[in-house]
């Protein structure tokens, strides 16, 4: 089975976000594999363990992303590919990223492509469906269970809390939701092996793309932090007193009930 994972390197969400002149300050911040993409990597490895084949992890980014690709290799992926954005000067958006991924996948034989259902930094969830559309393949988003028999996938999806059970034929793109699996930690032998596994870097020329074709279709005009929340009221007294005061405040001050 030819298994691919599309992955994003993201800001660790435990980090405090700081913004200077509309730009997110990444100085000294920790970066990680997007947590939803970890589910995708884990599921890809499980598929390989069950059905045989090969797992390739692909990301779009700069050379910094090699660290997260190595982590994916250490978890058990076979190959890693970095689609290098070094030649891109302007703003990138989901259009840019999915065009690059689309160009990469154009001549690949894939049975399944897995991704996270959303990246925790940007939170849009556009890239994977855009890629499926570029490739003209079916997609199932926010999956929580995946079984493949022959060329048929049986899938459980989380649809806003309800569970949907569907069947679809490969090739297929899926996006992974929490609950699908528990991603493994890289083992020490895994980390040693990962150093020798192939990690290819492809630039725009390799992908037969031109910078002009990748111009973002959306423009960011500002980034800002939400206003600091003022300290709230601590209610005091016996539980019954606190409750009475709360209901009064909710009705007459906050006016939410």
């Amino acid at each position, binding site marked *: 089975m030819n298994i691919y994972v599309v992955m994003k390197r993201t800001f660790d969400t435990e980090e405090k976000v700081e913004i200077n002149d509309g730009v997110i300050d990444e100085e000294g911040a920790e970066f990680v594999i997007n947590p939803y993409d970890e589910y995708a990597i884990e599921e890809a490895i499980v598929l390989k363990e069950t059905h045989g084949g090969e797992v390739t992890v692909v990301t779009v980014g700069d050379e910094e992303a090699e660290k997260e690709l190595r982590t994916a290799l250490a978890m058990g992926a076979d190959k890693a590919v970095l689609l290098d954005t070094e030649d891109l000067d302007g703003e990138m958006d989901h259009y840019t990223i999915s065009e690059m991924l689309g160009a990469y996948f154009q001549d690949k034989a894939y049975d399944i492509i897995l991704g996270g259902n959303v990246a925790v930094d940007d939170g849009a969830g556009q890239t994977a469906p855009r890629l499926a559309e570029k490739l003209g393949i079916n997609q199932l*988003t926010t999956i929580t269970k995946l079984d493949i028999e022959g060329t048929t996938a049986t899938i459980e999806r989380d649809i806003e*809390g309800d569970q949907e059970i569907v069947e679809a*034929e490969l090739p297929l793109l899926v996006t992974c939701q929490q609950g699908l699996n528990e991603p493994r930690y890289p083992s020490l032998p895994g980390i040693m092996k990962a150093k020798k596994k192939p990690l290819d870097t492809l630039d725009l020329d390799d992908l037969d793309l031109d910078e002009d074709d990748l111009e973002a279709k959306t423009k960011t005009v500002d980034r*800002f932090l939400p206003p600091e929340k003022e300290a709230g009221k601590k209610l005091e007294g016996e539980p019954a007193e606190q409750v009475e005061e709360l209901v009064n405040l909710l009705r007459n001050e906050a006016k939410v009930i």
Partner: protein
Amino acid sequence: MAEKALVLAEVSEGELRNVSFEVIAAGRKVVGDNEVVALLCGDDVSAFSETLIHHGADRVILAEHEDLQNYTTDAYKQAIEQVIEAESPDALLFPHTSPGKDVAPRIATKLDSGLVSDVVELEVDGDEVVFTRPIYSGKAFEKKNVPGSPIFATFRPNNIPPLEADSSRTGETSEVAVEIKDLRTVIKDVIKKTSGGVDLSEASVIVAGGRGVKSAEGFEPLYELADVLGGAVGASRGASDAEYCEYSLQIGQTGKVVTPDLYIAVGISGAIQHLAGMSNSKCIVAINKDAEAPIFDIADYSLTGDLFEIVPLLTEEFKKVKAEA
């Protein structure tokens, strides 16, 4: 100013979702006096067109087809694309819901267009529409626009105020015969897991429990409180990991992002991952026995004490208030 906004309305469990009215209101802002057209896809949805017009749509298009009863990417994409083809709207405004999130990026790709996802606010200045959306799980925000045409955005439920319903408004409703073929996904079953019909992402009141609730039985008083307030029950990751409740109730970084009018956090300490999912709620109440719990830093009203004592008292107090009203 855009000339025609096509907004996607949504029906769930036999009712129009509120977010339908919110995207109509967004459409009105984007087009001014020009046309807001609401598209409703489904199997038998004609009964809803009048309500959409009362809430501000100028015209309603019904795409009725048996394959549109349940959402699949292929069926909805084909139906929506056929309507776009016929109508040539210059603004597309969809709900950022399970179907909207799934289909909008594909349509944007097909149209070679930009898309701004998960919008919570919009400003219109002449031709320019600027969308505000949360990033880094709500720890920051960005403002974006779409320089090309169409303007395309999806809207997070519960953020754009809907227009006041006006039952004297009239408008045309048309039915389009959509052609749907080559469906690649077969729906085998849908298992309802959401509580009492109030959808977490659209609930105006949420009562959420954390590890402090201690057990599945411990959630019972939370359900009673939510019932009295017409709200939904949610949970922290701690509570769902401990199997006190379904994962589907989880609010936070991994889980749902919610912005209700009132969020009551019960026995939730307030880990940063949880705050990511609820910190933009309009009013936050925290109930915790630990006076140092981080949730108190962001709560509007903090109650310190035993939740098993406070929550039932709160339910009784709300009942009393309701009875008086």
